[in-house]
């Protein structure tokens, strides 16, 4: 039996433009998720630790970051757990590659006299596979020195696997690694690295570890089981199935081979989007109370006010975010609601308020008819503001 931890897309050092002050904390969480993955590998006493690309968010990550990763890999090496890493699209193996700049294997103390005995292996264009003698396993991971693959990374794998099975080498398991997209016409077929399920089926691999998609998902092509582990910690707001790594068990019982894929949670950050009908919000404190009802320090809460808002609802989004900040990892409150048009009978058109309201409502109708919703929303805000100001209400500007 061969037991594997499969992760990918850790994106260490990623930028989080939407997280503001919390971005640095999120980067720490990404590293923490990687560390948790290593902990899981140690606890599960797996044989093989695979990182299917984009371990780093870019090739220019600082030495500090590489050293931290190396320290984690060293823990695996101490426990004789083999690590195989392939560069991805963010940390592509070009001439400026981070894997060229730093010898991760050496830093992790995972080098050995022969490739087969190495505890940490970074596959590169010149070394598209590694035969892990101790595990009777061949790991195939064709990578390219360019972001865009000149051909499918699975092109030669089928032949290699077949030749190896026919040969005398003591190889029981063939595991593949690819950082790229499975072709979905009109969606991913123009991606930088694309493979097809037919290609996967043809490889004859026992398992194909995929990276590039940040949400965990698995499938089977022919007899070949494949899976995306997803990012161990979410990298962007919409990655609801991120935060997982995969524990893979390959077994051969009386000639029948089975592949078991288990999802394990390592990431903590969750993203929730809520839409709140502005009409139901009575006041700013009420909104704060509503949002603060379920505090969660691991949650990035993206709240959006929608619908039509009452005139007297005067919200200061910054204040709300500040008030909610202690309860969440990050709160983002956006107001996509629009102020109501004027309700009830309009004042006489002879009055300024009457003329004002009629003028703006006509403009709003025109803009909304033309589909300029953003401008229309601004005009609605102007309408509300003027209406309140002309009525002598206190409005915070």
């Amino acid at each position, binding site marked *: 039996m061969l037991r594997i931890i499969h992760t990918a897309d850790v994106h260490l*050092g*990623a*930028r*989080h*433009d*939407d*997280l*503001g*002050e919390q*971005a*640095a904390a999120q*980067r720490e969480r990404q590293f923490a998720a990687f560390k948790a993955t290593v902990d899981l590998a140690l606890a599960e006493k797996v044989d093989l630790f695979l990182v299917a690309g984009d371990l780093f*968010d*870019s*090739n*220019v*990550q*600082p030495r500090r*970051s590489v050293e931290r990763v190396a320290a984690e890999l060293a823990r695996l090496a101490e426990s004789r757990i083999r690590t195989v890493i392939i560069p991805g699209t963010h940390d592509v193996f*070009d*001439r*400026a*590659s981070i894997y*060229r*700049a730093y010898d991760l294997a050496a830093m992790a103390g995972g080098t050995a006299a022969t490739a087969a005995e190495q505890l940490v292996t970074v596959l590169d264009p010149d070394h598209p596979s590694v035969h892990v003698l101790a595990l009777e396993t061949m790991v195939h991971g064709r990578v390219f020195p360019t972001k865009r693959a000149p051909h499918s990374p699975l092109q030669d794998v089928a032949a290699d696997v077949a030749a190896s099975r026919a040969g005398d080498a003591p190889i029981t398991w063939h595991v593949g690694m690819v950082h790229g997209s499975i072709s979905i016409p009109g969606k991913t077929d123009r991606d930088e690295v694309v493979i097809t399920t037919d290609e996967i089926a043809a490889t004859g691999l026992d398992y194909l570890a995929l990276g590039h998609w940040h949400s965990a998902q698995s499938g089977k092509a022919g007899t070949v089981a494949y899976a995306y582990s997803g990012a161990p910690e979410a990298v962007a707001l919409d990655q609801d199935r991120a935060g997982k790594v995969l524990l893979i068990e390959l077994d051969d019982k009386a000639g029948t081979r089975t592949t078991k894929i288990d999802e394990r949670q390592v990431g903590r950050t969750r993203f929730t989007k809520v839409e709140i009908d502005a009409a139901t919000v009575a006041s700013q404190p009420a909104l704060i109370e509503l949002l603060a009802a379920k505090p969660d320090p691991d949650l990035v809460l993206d709240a959006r006010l929608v619908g039509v808002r009452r005139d007297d609802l005067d919200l200061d989004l910054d204040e709300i975010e500040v008030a909610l900040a202690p309860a969440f990892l990050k709160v983002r409150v956006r107001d996509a609601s629009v102020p109501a048009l004027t309700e009830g009978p309009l*004042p*006489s*058109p*002879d*009055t*300024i*308020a*009457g*003329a*004002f309201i009629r*003028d*703006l409502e006509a403009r709003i109708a025109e803009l909304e008819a033309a589909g300029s919703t953003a401008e229309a929303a*601004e*005009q609605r*805000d*102007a*309408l509300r*503001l*003027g209406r309140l*100001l*002309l*009525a*002598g209400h206190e*409005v915070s*500007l």
Partner: protein
Amino acid sequence: MRIRKLVGRDFRRYRTFDIELAPGLTVIRGPNEAGKTTVQRALELALTKRATSTAAELEALRPWGAPADARSIISVDFEQDEEDGLHTGTLEKTFAGARGTVRLDYEGQSITDPAMADQVMAELTGMPTEGFFRSTASVHHFELSDLSRDEGALRDRLQASISGADRGTSRARKKLDKALHDLNTRGDRNPGRLKLAELAVEQSKAALDQGELALAQLERDRDSLAGARERRADAETALAERRSLLEKARQAERIMVDRDAATERYERYRQAVEVDIEIQQLANTHPSATPLPVLRSAVERLRTLDGKIRELRAALSGEVRVDFEVAPEPTWQPLSRLAIALVVVGLIIVGLPVLLKFIGVADVGVLVQVVGALVALVGVVMAAVALWLRRSYTLQTQMRDVEIDRRLRGRSEMEAELRDAEAKAEGQLGSLGLTDLAEAEDLLSREEQHVGQIERLTGQLEGLVGKEPTETLPTLRDAAALEIAQKTSALEALGPIAKEPRARERLEVEVRDQEGALERSRDDEANARARVEANTVDAEQVAGQAERLAAWREQLSAAQRRQRVFAATLAAIDRAEQATMKTATRYLESHMVRDLATVTGGRYRRVRVDDRTLDIEVFAPEKNDWVPVSSLSQGTLDLVYLVARLGLVRLVTGDRRPPLVFDDPFVTLDDTRAARALGLLKSVASDFQVIYLTTSARYDEAADAVVVLDGPTSVDSAAPLTGDPGATGASPADVPAATGAAAAGTGPTAAPRPGRRA
């Protein structure tokens, strides 16, 4: 809306007051300081002021000397014409700063929320704000005269009135202007939010750009480093290859040297073998059987014997002449003596001056010593000549002695010797197998030549191989030949480089060049590495900059949106104001025309108000042209303004009818005009409730009700009396006393006597 009853407590100079008002025109009359303005203010506050207002003015409402916890309270009873009939209500406001309270009972509802109560009151009166009420429906006597002095003030007032009608256009504009100003302020010292955000975006962007540039540079530098590393590896490979070739070339050179040596050796041994064979042949073909030394001594003896035989034969065949003279006296002795003498004399001549100088007798100089030395030298030469003479003399003596001896021997002896010699010569020749000396000489000569040949060859052999044993020579020759073959095949094995002429020199140059290239590529690599290491950019810090920029951009865009919204609001208000102003001015014109004609007795029947400037002009019949109202008399101007106000009230309140309060605005009018104005008020009073405050009784007749207020009574008896005693009544000093009286319950509470005209 009509106010039926106005009650106040702890309000200005009153502890309490209670005034009933007529639905039509009520005249409230009293001398100065009787509290007319206080009544007007009480009405304004009751109708428009928020009960919770914290305005400083309200704090001053409390009467002087009132208890600390006293609160100014105003309550009104009112009635309102609605479509379904007459409704009544009561409103009570207690002003206590933020803790003020209100209670409005109307249509069965009781409202205590201050804002709500004001809203309902605004609905009932049509007066949205205090400002508007004060600028239209509540007229102070000084306002007309003030305004008339300044046309601009009049215009402002009118505009403010229209704006006020829409519940604070100017306030709205002011707020928007301020907000826009706050956003936009561009000064470095006091930047607005927009500017702050723009600055922050600019700075963050600059920082980010710098970071991104550094990161891009890092990528380029790493790329260069990878390239430099490859070039260095290539250079090392090329150098290793050149060095290996050079080593081969050197090896080839060594092998060639060895092969040349082997070839030379082979040649020598080959020659040596040939010479040796020749020597062997010569050794077997000596002309003489006798070895050469023996032969040579035999021939020598034969030669001696032959000489002796010929000598003896010659002696025996003839006489030999011999001289016996005494030998001459030897000549060498005197010469030797002279030489010795000269030497001695020379040495003395040399030595004497030294001695003389030494003992200090005389210094005769070097010349004498030179002469002495020459004398000694001559002596030595002469001694040598003497020695040579002595030797030749001795030789001569010996030769003469031999000759004498020979002559003394006898002839027989000579013959015996001759026979003996001939026998010996015979014997010698016999032993050699020869017949005569000539043959012997010939044989010796041939044998010497033969042996000489052998010796020459032996010498040649030695020259070729030294003392090498001759039997090993063929072996050594063959060994050399084998070595030549081996070296040749070794050269073949080294490849074409071995055959290339001057390959080593070429390769040495190439290796030097390649070493230089490697050195350069190492320098390049070191430089590239140094550049990479010198670039201290931290991707995570750059990420932080990007994130800050994103946050600032968001703020900037929010600020820009606010700016757009504010600007749009302001522009829309401006447009609305322009549009309404036109309608308002037309409306004003139509109402003013009617009222102006009434109050001016038909003198002015045409009015026009400029839409933009709000300048009012009237058509003057005597000039038959439009004239600005500023050119009219003060009284007329007051009337024009009064009708403008009334027009405004009608314009703004629509179907609502707020009570109109006039604080004697007609004080400057002559009696005729005043009567006309009063007539106007009378006609207005059929529509509006009118409260007219005055010191004069001239309006009593027109009033539906007259309320008389008493003036203050206390005087400051402690102050020194100066000048006009009448001024005492108006002196502020008496007011506290009057208030004190009011507080004691003897003041105005009892004073107003509501009266109603039948």
